[in-house]
């Protein structure tokens, strides 16, 4: 019998703990496939943050370090500065990257640190039970904005990709989504480019991935994907904000 699909060698056999319909699994698969296809899995070190992806050190088949909340970019900096030949990456959610870790993400970009960041934006804190994130949309109900987020009280959601693209050292910045097979293919391409940038030694690369959180959004997996398209995409437009070629 011919094998038509096989799990990426970039992932271990540990069963993922993610909720049904959550897109973390998809993004894990894309990162793992890119690492294998670029033939860098064996020289890569990933940094797992705090949040839903805290346990990703068990899922990726490469060296991993667990970081405290928001500090993954600083931890990755330490690893990369010790061994510049390694491929070092962080995988962070929006609470981690856009709230508690804003200083760290801005400063890896500022230094043009040669690492790659995969940023999961699902507009909510997942692991802690659905609290408001800086990326939570106006009107969106969360356990800490029970009547919906308002501009007056919490301001407008942070657009991290746009913001980071203004920093010179961030040489590749793209926002993608994993809601359709086409978008998943585009997402993988962007992730590949971000890692290629690291290999070229030109600077910092980040891919923001619009993702779903069916559990905390209280929607079915299918409705979650539609909600993402209807609500997140208009506010967080997909596209490339920065490529290394622009600077050449």
């Amino acid at each position, binding site marked *: 019998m011919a094998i038509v699909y096989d799990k990426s060698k970039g992932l271990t056999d540990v069963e993922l703990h993610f909720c049904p319909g959550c897109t973390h699994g998809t993004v894990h698969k894309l990162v793992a496939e890119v690492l294998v296809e670029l033939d860098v899995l064996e020289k890569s070190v990933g940094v797992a943050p705090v949040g839903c992806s805290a346990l990703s050190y068990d899922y990726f088949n*490469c*060296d991993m370090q667990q970081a405290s909340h928001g500090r993954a970019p600083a931890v990755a900096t*330490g690893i990369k500065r*010790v061994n510049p030949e390694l491929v070092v990456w962080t995988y962070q959610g929006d609470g981690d990257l856009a709230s508690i870790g804003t200083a760290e993400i*801005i400063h890896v970009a500022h230094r043009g640190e040669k690492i790659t960041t995969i940023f999961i934006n699902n507009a909510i804190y997942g692991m802690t039970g659905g609290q408001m994130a800086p990326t939570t949309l106006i009107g969106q109900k969360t356990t800490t904005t029970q009547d919906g987020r308002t501009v007056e009280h919490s301001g407008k959601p942070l657009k991290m990709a746009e913001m980071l693209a203004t920093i010179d050292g961030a040489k590749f910045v793209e926002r993608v989504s994993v809601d359709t097979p086409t978008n998943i293919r585009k997402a993988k391409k962007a992730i590949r480019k971000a890692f290629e940038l690291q290999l070229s030694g030109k600077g910092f690369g980040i891919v923001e991935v619009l993702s779903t959180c069916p559990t905390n959004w209280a929607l079915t997996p299918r409705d979650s994907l539609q909600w993402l398209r209807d609500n997140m995409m208009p506010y967080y437009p997909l596209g490339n904000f920065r490529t290394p070629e622009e600077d050449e």
Partner: protein
Amino acid sequence: MSKVLMKGNEAIAEAAIRGGCKFFFGYPITPQNELPEYMSRELPKHGGVFLQAESEVAAINMVYGAAGAGGRVMTSSSSPGIALKQEGISYIAGANLPAVIVNIVRGGPGLGGIQPAQSDYNQVTRGGGDGDYKMPVFVPANLQEMVDIMMEAFDIADYYRNPVMVVGDGMIGQMMEPIEFKKPVPRELPVKDWITTGTKGERKPNIINSLFLEASDLENHNLEAQEKYAEMVKNETRVENYNMEKPELVLTAYGTTSRICKNVIAEFKKEGIEIGLIRPITVWPFPHKAFEDIPESAKGILVVEMSQGQMIDDVKIANNGRLPIGFHGRSGGMIPDPQDIILKVREMLGGVK
């Protein structure tokens, strides 16, 4: 090798480099700035990397990452900066990583002041970060001792896979004394086969981690750490017992304060009164035995600190109710005056009030 005259902070940096430090991550704060400045200039000449981080929090997390990747790494800061680093120190301890942290203590709480103080005792010996962790905390009293400890600190950290803290006060950091860089006794260090260097396809992934969601796993992790801490208590406790043959009273103090106490002891000697000094060189592990061994001649213990009284709690534990304990402390950057200590000693000996 001949002696050189160096400023404390610079001597610490040079000793760290000679002790094998290759990576430094830090953030500016007075009164320790000469240390990172020296590192920024000298470390690259030795094939190392100096990086000024965006904050103390980032700096200690860079240390955490670098230690996980196998780098011999350190950071330095001063009291409020160390408070910010506590999260990272706890992670480093929790993940069994070696790193060296230098704390040049200034007065607190809050922004406090920039003058010398010893009010970080609790912060450095009682964790500060979360969890049941411990780390050796060295409190040298002069630059030669500081330099000796710094040259050994990276080996101690590697030997136990544990953070090590070296504490000076602003005075130690700023003063100049002659020093000689002497190679420490080499230790047999374990091979670092647990570091994140990429699997190279030759082994299973290495994971640096302090997260254990199973309660029993976390407890076992903590129990293993306790075994390590017990080894440290056995092997790394350091103390100087000074003039302790037949003291009428025992002073106890560490760092700069212990030097002032030695002046006091010299004054009493002129009168034929013998006063002893127990000077902890490590405050964790605390030298309990030195207090058990206080001779019968002693009528009491006087604790002298540049704080409102922090080490005194450990002294009470070590004394176990045996002798009366007195206290003389100055804080905020004020330095104990020998005359005040002399008065306090006389009072405890039942002389002049």
